[in-house]
């Protein structure tokens, strides 16, 4: 969490620096939704396409979009995720393996602005740190994500976004992958470009 705050402060500092050149929009938002493991702990001998997706988990978090330069919006984020346990019958006995608990923080680069006026799309990609833990296993590695968001502004200074993204945590030569679908609510703290 401290690192997230540091990132947020860095982004804010960048924003204030860029303010000399033009209007800066700073917002704060919360989001929540679904997160689904992809191609994790699958059995290839009896594989069907639906097996590619693990038990659905949940994700919540906060984002601080800072629109400081014309093309990109920089968005520090912090998210927590929780994945369901998985039950499997092995050797005639039913066993349950705990799902991961995840914490991640990082920075998204959004093409355009997620909280602009009207109804709009915004692609984005992000880089951060993700920690996945469950009994007997811990992964604490660099995380990547990219996705597409749809934003609309139902009232002044408030915007609603729906995002679909693909996220992965690099584990050496391989990765743990997830698809996320979230809904977020953002409130603009400034009267800059992002405050419409």
């Amino acid at each position: 969490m401290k690192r997230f705050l540091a990132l947020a402060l860095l982004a804010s500092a960048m924003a204030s620096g860029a303010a000399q050149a033009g209007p800066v929009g700073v917002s704060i938002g919360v989001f929540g939704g679904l997160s689904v493991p992809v191609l994790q702990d699958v059995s290839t001998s009896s594989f069907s396409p639906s097996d590619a997706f693990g038990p659905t988990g949940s994700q919540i978090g906060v984002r601080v979009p800072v629109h400081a330069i014309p093309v990109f919006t920089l968005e520090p984020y912090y998210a927590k995720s929780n994945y369901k346990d998985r039950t499997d019958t092995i050797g005639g006995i039913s066993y349950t393996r705990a799902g991961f608990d995840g914490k991640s923080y990082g920075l998204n680069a959004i093409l355009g602005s997620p909280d602009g006026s009207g109804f709009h799309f915004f692609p984005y990609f992000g880089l951060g740190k993700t920690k996945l833990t469950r009994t007997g296993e811990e992964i604490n590695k660099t995380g990547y994500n990219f996705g597409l968001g749809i934003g609309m502004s139902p009232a002044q200074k408030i915007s609603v976004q729906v995002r679909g993204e693909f996220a992965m945590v690099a584990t050496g030569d391989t990765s743990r992958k997830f698809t996320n679908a979230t809904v977020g609510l953002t409130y603009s703290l400034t009267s800059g470009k992002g405050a419409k």
Partner: protein
Amino acid sequence: MRRYAWVIAALGLGLMSAGCILTSGQVQIDFDLPNFSATSPTGIVGTTIDLNTEKEYKDNKDKLKDLSDLAVLGKFTNNSATPVDVEVWMTTTTSTYTDATLMKADPTAVKLWGPFQVAGSATKTIDWNASAQLFTVAGKAALLNEAKGGSLGDGKFTLYAVGAAGTYNFSVANGALVLVIDVGI
């Protein structure tokens, strides 16, 4: 939006160049173990495993990068009135020891898992989460070498369940070795 196309194209190229980082997955392979017992420190029985007999392993062996999760599962019955701490050892070359001391003296022997305590005259099915915590670092490394094959190992090894100390008499039923391997697709 058209002016952003180059950024999206560059991002796509970058992700594709990540190769198997993006196109990878975790494959779970279950190896059923025969029922076996250890009636005393000089009455142990090994179980030889040949990973190559498992189709899922053979199909993914060349793409194997790491072991992400492991578990020894099964129903442990303590046939003695005193509690037993069960350990699983492996010899990376196949062997047929019946004496625990001689088995542990084998230069390729490594403690793989344990201890898992079973109360006297009790039967206990191990929990998957608890089992995942009981693997030793050295055991996991040895198992990974065997799984990777090549010069590191041939995928054949022998597992022994023994008591950590003293005399013991226990049996294991419905046993399984579960490996979750990281593979590049």
